[in-house]
């Protein structure tokens, strides 16, 4: 049985989802030879540290009641540098302008010889090569399946299951919010503005939905795929981006009459990164509805492999994080 001491840095919906999943899956983890103890949890207001293992139920309850997990006035970075542990689960919010605290946290983790599993796209979009170099020099594991498709396995599918194949292209729907809005616009023959309002009400779109609807979120995921799968050194500036804000209900109806649905498609090839609304034949595997994410991977040996799954949601994202943790430590 491998003892793994972990910290959860960032205790928003994803961090809390991770705590819930660890509670729920303790037996499964043990059966895979992993004895996982969370020894520190940090949010923006402080941290709880307990080298004997934190009572996750109590931490979740306290967060619910008081809005913070904090018991001590410690930052996430302090915890990473000073609390003795093996794994940093980095779930702070994405900042694609500077990389934000996520970037600081990840570099601090590698400096201290700790493995990192993250759902945070910002640092990977901005500083992929630098982070990989830091991880490799420190001989640390660095996994980030949760940054691209939530519960839809794409990076590990390509790196493990499709190992040996040459990857020619990846295309798919990488943003559940846009997919929801376009699906509902077609179903209800309603305007973009109406369906954006509906998705905000349901909590599918953020209060500021710019990242999603302008295609920026999908573009960041393409950058991560391009760098991790194709070994490129791409940044956000390398992606041609068109969002969904100009799509009309009439255009969706006209497309449907011709046998197509309109979807925001992200496309990665060695020489091209593009996010744009595209016509997808209604019977095509990429024509999934609702908040689903989907990706088709074109390979030389296996042909085209398509995978779909829930792209967002705290438990779904936590599932991708758990799968990364297991693949690092299973015996």
């Amino acid at each position, binding site marked *: 049985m491998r003892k793994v001491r972990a910290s959860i840095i960032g205790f928003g919906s994803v961090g809390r989802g991770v705590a819930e999943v660890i509670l729920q899956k303790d037996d499964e983890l043990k059966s895979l030879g992993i004895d996982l103890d969370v020894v520190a949890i940090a949010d923006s207001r402080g941290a709880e540290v307990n080298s004997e293992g934190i009572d996750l139920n109590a931490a979740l309850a306290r967060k619910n009641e008081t809005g913070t997990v904090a018991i001590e006035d410690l930052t996430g970075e302090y915890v990473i540098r000073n609390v003795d542990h093996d794994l940093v689960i980095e779930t702070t919010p994405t900042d694609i302008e500077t990389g934000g605290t996520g970037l600081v946290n990840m570099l601090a983790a590698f400096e201290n010889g700790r493995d990192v599993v993250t759902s945070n796209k910002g640092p990977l979009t901005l500083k992929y090569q630098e982070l990989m170099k830091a991880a490799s020099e420190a001989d640390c594991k660095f996994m980030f399946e949760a940054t691209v498709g939530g519960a839809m396995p794409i990076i590990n599918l390509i790196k493990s299951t499709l190992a040996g194949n040459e990857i020619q292209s990846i295309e798919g729907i990488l943003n559940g919010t846009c997919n929801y809005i376009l699906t509902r616009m077609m179903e209800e023959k309603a305007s973009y503005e109406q369906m954006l309002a509906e998705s905000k009400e349901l909590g599918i779109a953020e209060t500021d939905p710019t990242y999603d609807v302008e295609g920026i979120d999908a573009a960041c995921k393409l950058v991560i795929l391009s760098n991790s799968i194709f070994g490129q050194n791409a940044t956000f500036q390398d992606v041609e981006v068109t969002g969904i804000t*100009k799509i009309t209900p*009439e*255009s969706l109806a*006209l497309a449907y*009459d011709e046998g197509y649905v*309109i979807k925001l498609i992200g496309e990665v090839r060695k020489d091209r990164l593009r996010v744009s609304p595209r*016509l997808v034949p209604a019977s095509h595997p990429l024509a999934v509805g609702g908040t689903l994410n989907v990706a088709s991977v074109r390979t030389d040996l296996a042909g085209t492999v398509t995978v779909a799954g829930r792209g967002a949601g705290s438990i779904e994202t936590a599932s991708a994080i758990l799968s990364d943790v297991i693949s690092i430590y299973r015996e």
Partner: protein
Amino acid sequence: MRVSMDIELKDAPGQLLLALNPISELKGNLKSIVHHHEDRTPRSTIPVQLVFEVEHENLDLIISRLEENGIGVARVDEKRFMEHGAVILIGHIVHTDIQDTIDTIDKTGFAEVVDICLSMPHIDKRSSASLKIDAVGRKELHEAMAVLKEVAEKKDLLVIEPIGAEVA
């Protein structure tokens, strides 16, 4: 362009070769040959169906060479446009001169707008249109799309293309 042709051969050795030579000499690319040896015409000739691709200006020459070789040409169907594309446009499509947008495709000579369906919800709102474009080949269809995207950009129209539309 793609040509489908029915010819009639005499039942003698070497006739099929005699029929295929003019096509290959004039750079035709044979796609299929169906030779109905057991199925004679009332004139006791053997019907053969050919499908080939060839430059438009060479077709008449092929027909006359076949006839010079004593081969009857019973039927010729030309299909100039082999590739079909669809695209959606969103924006002020009519106010930015829809005729001019269509003309830019038609003027290429290798592609044409063959159908347009327009939806205009309100004078102040963006219109949507679906366009069908036919072209003589895949490469030409791709070029026509590029021409359309160029004019659409000037007119602030959003072009939505099908997935997998690029030429490999």
